[in-house]
């Protein structure tokens, strides 16, 4: 089997943009994504002695970036504890009897051929960024990266009751934002 090699001189030209785009889907702002890519290159350089050539350079850099993103989530989660909310507060989707509020009633969507649409994808990501940060984090881990809820609770050190409130709220807000900014237009 051929061993993969590292060529740090080529990293910026070959991978910086791809890594930036990958990070942008997962963190709220471009500046944060940019810093994470930079950190990825720094820590990859520092640990390049540990690279055993079993996976490609590109896949290895993605792994480093994924671990940087997880570290970022953990660090942010410490300061976001107050955004957890409970099932009852800060809920503008339902009235106090649990019925849909008038402006939030789901309408019919015509969803043909949308997934490939780049403009739609931008709206989707904007709506995700508009969520409270900790909601966006659990949403990203669960639905974009496909992690199990148990893994997410363990990594972020949150209770499963918190997790379900966050996901429920995230889904309601995201659905409503997509409807308003795409299907109603």
């Amino acid at each position, binding site marked *: 089997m051929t061993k993969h090699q590292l060529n740090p001189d080529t990293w910026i030209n070959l991978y910086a943009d791809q890594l930036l785009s990958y990070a942008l889907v997962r963190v709220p702002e471009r500046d944060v994504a940019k810093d994470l890519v930079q950190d990825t290159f720094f820590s990859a350089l520092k640990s390049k002695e540990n690279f055993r050539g079993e996976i490609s350079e590109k896949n290895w850099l993605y792994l480093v970036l994924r671990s940087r993103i997880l570290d970022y989530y953990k660090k942010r989660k410490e300061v976001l504890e107050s955004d957890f909310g409970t099932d009852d507060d800060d809920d503008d989707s339902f009235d106090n009897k*649990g019925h849909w509020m008038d402006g939030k009633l789901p309408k019919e969507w015509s969803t043909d051929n949308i997934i490939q649409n780049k403009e739609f994808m931008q709206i989707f990501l904007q709506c995700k960024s508009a969520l409270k940060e900790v909601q966006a984090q659990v949403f990203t881990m669960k639905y974009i990266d496909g992690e199990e809820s148990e893994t997410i609770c363990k990594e972020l050190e949150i209770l499963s009751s918190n997790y379900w409130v966050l996901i429920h709220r995230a889904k309601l807000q995201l659905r409503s934002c997509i409807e308003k900014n795409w299907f109603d237009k």
Partner: protein
Amino acid sequence: MINCKESTRLTIKKEENKITLRERIELSFHLMMCKFCSAFNVQNSWINGVSKHAEAHDSFSESEKQDLEVRMKDSTK
């Protein structure tokens, strides 16, 4: 009978098979009678599918790249 808030909560929990048989039955009942929650149910699954395809297209500007190159060189000194 469950209300709409509860029905949307169960719709999401059902994805991970985290609901009881009774909850499943109550949810099915509610969805048959409520066109709004039924729409939510369909759209929620659709959003899950879209999320798997989420992608952005961005790039570093030339000056950002040069800046990054300088910093990488510095970091190894």
